[in-house]
């Protein structure tokens, strides 16, 4: 029978992590579906579970000196309701478009990150926001940049004796903003075919001082578009940004052919979404991709 632990402190939780192999559960939006899929084909046993939700202090969005801290129990809905600067508009769009409201009310941003699915809607946004992952473990806490956190297909550097407790999102200028475009084959409850997330920081002259663009669902791990980012630096924030996108900017992506889309389509869609995303960023608004 599956063991289920509900510790009341993080130390207890870490002790359980250190002592045995447990799967972490918060909102349950990945744990239960995985169990259901396995059981359908006769794999009835499941890993023991460690429920973090009774531990005080793991929730909440907190504004600190140079960053925002998002606790590991923060749900998509909480994120959506939080008063956050335009930098987080992309992340909020992801929160609005993931699953249905039921999933948004239960699923957590950190859970989305830790599942590390190539199609995880939060991940490209966290990359664009240069999030740092705050991990608690036996020796104490460590911070890992989100781009280093996911180190392979559905795999992270979080060790079996560690727990991700929060995300730290660096503050930027008041005018800096983010955007997100999700492409799916239906309106609600849809796994992304391709995603594009971006953050643009403007300099004193209103030109692009820094920019990070990230494509999801087109490779095992969400990928930055470094050459394009470079090209955008110093450019004015207007409708012409989209014209700077070149097909070669997507050469490092390695999309799959699967039942949702062909690889060639994903590449083309990544390019199209990137143009749309830049238009959104320039216009300071967002629209649905599909």
């Amino acid at each position, binding site marked *: 029978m599956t063991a289920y632990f509900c510790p009341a402190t993080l130390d207890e939780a870490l002790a359980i992590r250190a002592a045995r192999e447990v799967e972490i559960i918060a909102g349950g939006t990945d744990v239960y579906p995985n169990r259901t899929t396995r059981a*359908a084909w006769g794999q009835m046993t499941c890993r023991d579970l460690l429920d973090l939700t009774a531990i005080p202090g793991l929730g909440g969005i907190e504004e600190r000196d140079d960053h925002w801290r998002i606790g590991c129990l923060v749900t998509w809905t909480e994120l959506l309701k939080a008063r956050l600067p335009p930098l987080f508009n992309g992340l909020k769009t992801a929160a609005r478009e993931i699953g249905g409201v039921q999933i948004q009310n239960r699923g957590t941003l950190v859970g989305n990150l830790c599942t590390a699915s190539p199609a995880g809607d939060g991940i490209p946004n966290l990359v664009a926001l240069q999030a740092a992952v705050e991990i608690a473990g036996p020796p104490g806490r460590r911070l890992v940049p989100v781009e280093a956190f996911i180190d392979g297909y559905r795999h992270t550097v979080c060790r079996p004796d560690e727990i991700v407790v929060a995300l730290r999102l660096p503050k930027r200028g008041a005018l800096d903003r983010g955007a997100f475009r999700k492409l799916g084959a239906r309106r609600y409850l*849809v796994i992304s075919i391709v995603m594009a997330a971006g953050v643009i920081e403007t300099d004193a002259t209103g030109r692009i001082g820094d920019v990070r663009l990230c494509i999801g669902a087109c490779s095992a791990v969400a990928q930055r578009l470094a050459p394009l980012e470079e090209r955008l630096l110093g450019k004015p924030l207007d409708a012409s940004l989209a014209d700077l996108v070149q097909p070669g900017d997507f050469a490092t992506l390695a999309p799959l052919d699967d039942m949702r889309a062909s690889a060639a389509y994903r590449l083309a869609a990544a390019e199209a979404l990137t143009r749309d995303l830049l238009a959104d960023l320039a216009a300071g608004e967002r629209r649905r991709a599909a």
Partner: protein
Amino acid sequence: MDGDASPGFAAMAVSLTVNGAARTVVVHPFTTLADALRDELGLTGTKIGCNAGDCGACTVLLGGAQVCACLVPIAQAQGCEIHTVEGSGPNGITDRLRRAFLHHGAAQCGACTPGMLMAAASLLAREPHPSREAVCDAVGGVLCRCTGYTKIVEAVMAVFASSCDAAGGEGRVGARLARIDGWAKVTGAERFGADEAPAEALWLRILRSPHARAAFVLGDLEAFRRTKPGLEAIVTAADVPGENSFGIFPNLKDQPVFAEGQVRFRGEAVLGLVGTRAAIEAIDDAELPIAWTPLPPVSGVEAALGDGAPAIHAACPDNVLTRGRLSCGDVATGHAAAAATTEGTFRTSFVEHAYIEPEAGYARLVGPDRIEIFACTQAPYMDRDEVARVLGLPPRHVRIRPSACGGGFGGKLDVSVQPLLAVAAWKTRRPVRMVYSRIESMASTTKRHPAVIRAKASADSEGRLLAFESAADFNTGAYASWGPTVANRVPVHASGPYRVQNVLNRTRAVYTNDTPAGAFRGFGVPQAAIAHEGLMDDLAEALGLDRWTIRRRNALTKGDRTPSGQFLSHSAGLPTCLDALKEDWEAMLARVAAHNARNPRRRRGAGIACMWYGCGNTSMSNPSTMRIALDRAGQLTFYNGAVEIGQGSTTVLVQIAAEVLGLPPEAFTLVVGDTDLTFDAGKTSASRQTFVSGKAAALAARDLRRKILALANVGEAATLHLDGALLRIAEGEVRRTLDLSALPADRDGVALEGVGTYDPPTTALDENGQGVPYATYGFAAQIAEVEVDTVLGTTKVLRIVAAHDVGRAVNPTLVEGQIEGGIAQGLGLALMEEFIPGRTENLHDYLIPTVGDMPEIEIKLVEDPEPEGPFGAKGVGEPALIATAPAILSAIRHATGVTIRHVPVLPHRLWEALRERRASADELRPSPSRGGDGGGGES
């Protein structure tokens, strides 16, 4: 592993407030809230549709927020306030919603209804006057397969906007009577297959083949069983007391209840584990002694028809299960005289029914040699005979008590759990229950047949059809199921609802190692309509004709002969349907043109399609018998064997019976679909219940009325009033009172009864498919407006106007509900639904439309009465769906100029077709082409 008492393993006591009452459950902390509500607290109103957060049927409010109860560990509900469908909701909102849902016809089968109500309640609690977009966002996480969402959104928006009475006025024919069985659906009281079972019932879990084709050998199962406490039995083919086979046709019982040494598709039942729920859910399939030898599967019709393809069934060496044929005139002559000829190959995919209720039920022995099965079904009498055969019992020893059916669409016409439960209960002599998981349901039950249709059509310069020919191969999967029905129905319909003298339609149903294909709303006609409507658009284009005009010119009407030689003497309202759309069509074309002048990327298009559909079985007797009894206490009981699957037959039949009898609908007590209590009404399929059973209900009511009038010695114009055991009769000045309690009665106390049987008149089809296959046909035309993002290849359907000739709308709200739901399924068929065995066998990889994918829908009901039908009515269930997909394809073509002949039109397929078109356009230019790689797009 540690014992149950160790930390982390023990059951925990969880206290929560459910619908205002303090409750405590003692369960394992990982138990889902959904299971705790249903199993521990008996609150079965919360439905489990997928156990994965994909369907939202189990939505409840947790601390005021909507959640999927299947994703919440009970440990996390400690101290929480829960609202379920059984309660009145925050500030009574659920109660208000219930009335709105009933009034608007927002509940059909009722399986998604609890989830919809709770999702809507969470919105209305904070926002009493929500926008349409807010309503869609709020219910976007709940899938509905019946309604097309239109009436659900209307109902939610109306809760605080207007007063809603549950009753829709009087219940005469033509009235918008709120569905008679609706209250149970909006309160959670309805009992679906998983909602009822004896407390002592054992559980059954089926071990299914993970291989599409394999041989296997079972080891010592009894030795294995003894190692597993709580595992009472392992049932296999060896435990089947009668015939280990089932199937729709008497000569095609080719599917084993349990496989015998070989499996033919992924998901085939190999054996069953019977025991306590904990015991059977703790055993991994891999633990069982089964030696598998996987073999290369034959997937798709091309492979099955290829040289050297292995025979799926030894009795069918060429893998062709059935051939169908219709021939009239001479197509060569027709083509030769043509001003335009076109041909094409059309492909469709496996489509899953995706009813929100997975199959479930229980079986129990009643006495030593009688068995009773409670399960969801569309065909109780067929289930009875099938189970009897499997158990080796006379049919009268089997009773089928249909549960409420949470959607069917053809998928619950075949047996699923019934023979499995029967064998397990028979072997253990104890009640046995089971609930299919969503994945099990999708992997093991029938699908819509994938089709490859090669078709060719010719017309004269005016667009009048001169010849039509088609050859269609349907992938019937591993077992016959309804394959022959598809092969026989399609040739009749394949040239479309048009006048054409020279027709040659041929079909084959082909065995493969894919999931069995069976009945799905339209029996192959939706696939055929994609082909004939595609060719009509081709001809219109070739001849420079408007697409509406070419259809209007060819539309079948009264006085025409169909390709099967049937003379249409009545009720052929396609021209009227088209005329009803004319103004909308022209407005749509103008709107689209104006939009496209300004929007190079997001192109709009208008599309049109027509369809026809024969109601009832193809050239086969399909009678229905109805009985209405009036007992000595004055109870009027309607014994109605027509299973309600959400479409509304229970309500429609009562409306018909009430009108004929002259007593109001509320006077009737209902007994529906119980093989011990009702006559055989035939299956709920083929759009036949309103037409066939409705006629039988009218005849039964007339029979009873005649007896009453004769007894009272009054004439036809008399009015009836039932007042307890006194039946008061008035005719002009004459007043009579029948004291029912004084009348002689049978042993059930029935003093008067009326029985009616109706079997639609048809004739056999000859070797050329000539004859009268159906007594009547439904006709429809739909127009669709879409917007295509030509860069991303995505399609949004903006608006559909549907004109349907239904003969007579007995209940317009229910008819609209059928059409809206059919449009949703047609949209899914066109744009997103593709079942791939092993790959899209859940509801997040297999996509059906959500509320946000639905267009604005306008319905125009055309009533060209069918003299055979009750009050002129004919069927609408399948006609609702058939025109939608071709209308959407027509609109995509209009928007983009590319012709897609492969559904679903997933974004990547449309994008590839657009890219190919651009590449070929570039080749025509002097400048160097950008070149494509010639990918797989169809054009």
